[in-house]
């Protein structure tokens, strides 16, 4: 048995930028988060809000990990420290995951100004958003200037995660025409910056033009409106990553100057509060699924009660049982 350091003590060390303390608290958060962990997080939340949070998403194979690696190099060259939360899918069968981002990010470690953490999408108590965003808070409180969240751009949870970022970067790759179509309605429209990766490939121009044409259509007239840029990058030729960092910085400045940052912060708060509320409800539902729930389900299947009515009844009953431990 090992000496288990209390979470509140770890929280103190997180404030001092202690990497091991950050790592351990992320583990505890990911494991469900007992009341003491929640308390530590609540305390540390007061020290957050300084980091610029960048969400990076795109279809599998678009080159997100490579892009993140290059982007981290750019930030480091500009003198800023960077935390990365890299999210990989879990096996739907075993719940296990192979987290492979480290393979590409290998040369980033052994730099105390960089912290990389891999996370699996596995249902950590109902969803991925809460532990991932708690991890972002921990890196923020730990003093990192920039926090990058990298996730596969499929599924509502992932969209929620990028919604909790100040700047959202969508990575598009040439030759993935149908995939671009597939995410167009979802993540494509939440992009603050578009990247076309693998820009050394001859068909990248087509992707760039398509994106620009699409963005043109949704352009609103007026002054002081953010024009979503399309940044071509190539890890093969090491081009575009400085431009990408500059575009993210410009977006950050735009948010501050236009005052949009206030609305964005409100949006982030909304996303997070709703997300946690959802989780608490789901968790509660799963916990006391025996007695009352079964009763209600029977009534719904027998058409004595409609699903909406049953849900309202359940929520009313839940009100009594929800406690602060979540």
């Amino acid at each position, binding site marked *: 048995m090992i000496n288990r350091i209390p979470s509140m003590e770890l929280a103190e060390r997180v404030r001092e930028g202690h990497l091991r303390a950050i790592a351990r608290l992320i583990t505890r958060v990911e494991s469900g988060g007992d009341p003491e962990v929640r308390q530590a997080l609540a305390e540390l939340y007061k020290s957050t809000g300084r980091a610029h949070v960048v969400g990076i998403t795109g279809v599998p194979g678009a080159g997100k990990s490579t892009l993140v690696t290059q982007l981290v190099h750019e930030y480091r060259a500009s003198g800023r420290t960077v935390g990365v939360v890299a999210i990989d899918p879990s096996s739907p069968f*075993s719940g296990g995951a192979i987290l492979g981002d480290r393979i590409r990010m290998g040369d980033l470690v052994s730099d105390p100004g960089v912290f990389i953490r891999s996370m699996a999408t596995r249902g950590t108590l109902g969803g991925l958003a809460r532990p991932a965003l708690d991890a972002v808070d921990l890196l923020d409180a730990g003093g990192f200037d920039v926090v990058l969240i990298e996730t596969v751009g499929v599924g509502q949870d992932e969209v929620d995660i990028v919604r909790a970022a100040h700047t959202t970067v969508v990575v598009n790759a040439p030759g993935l025409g149908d995939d671009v179509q597939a995410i167009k309605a979802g993540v494509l429209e939440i992009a603050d910056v578009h990247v076309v990766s693998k820009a050394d490939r001859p068909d990248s121009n087509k992707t760039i033009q398509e994106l620009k044409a699409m963005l043109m259509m949704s352009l609103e007239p007026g002054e002081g409106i953010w024009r979503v840029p399309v940044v071509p990058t190539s890890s093969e030729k090491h081009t575009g990553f400085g431009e990408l960092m500059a575009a993210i910085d410009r977006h950050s400045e735009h948010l501050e100057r236009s005052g949009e940052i206030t609305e964005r912060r409100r949006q982030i708060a909304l996303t997070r509060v709703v997300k946690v509320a959802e989780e608490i409800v789901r968790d509660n539902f799963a916990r006391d699924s025996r007695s009352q729930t079964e009763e209600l389900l029977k009534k719904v299947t027998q058409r004595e009660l409609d699903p909406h009515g049953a849900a309202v009844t359940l929520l009313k009953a839940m009100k009594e049982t929800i406690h602060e431990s979540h």
Partner: protein
Amino acid sequence: MQNNDNSAAVIRVMLAKIGLDGHDRGIKVVARALRDAGMDVVYTGLHRTPEEVVDAAIQEDVDILGISLLSGAHMHIFPKVLELLKAKEAEDMIVAGGGVIPDDDVKELYQMGVDKILLQDTPPQEIIDSFRQLVAERGAR
């Protein structure tokens, strides 16, 4: 839907290849087996330095750091890894080794502080079981 106990039980493992050793078929098979057993496996890729691996393992806060060595450099690499873990106050991390290691060296590695050596031809289920046991013995962290 998972409950608290289930999610808390997810074991995090880092599988690492250190130094001039290009044989990664075995470690990939192990990675797959551990994943299929419900563990989160962080794979480092080839040709890492002990420093890189230890720093990454600390950031990932893995329960177990598994190092596969088929290059014969185990008597150099394990002491280095253990020393780095100690220097970085991460001695509570479980260190496991796998690959081609002579019996005499295995004994010495255990004395040095390596928690488990699993030689080539160890069936995947045995690796899974021993990892679970090591984590259970260590207790909550």
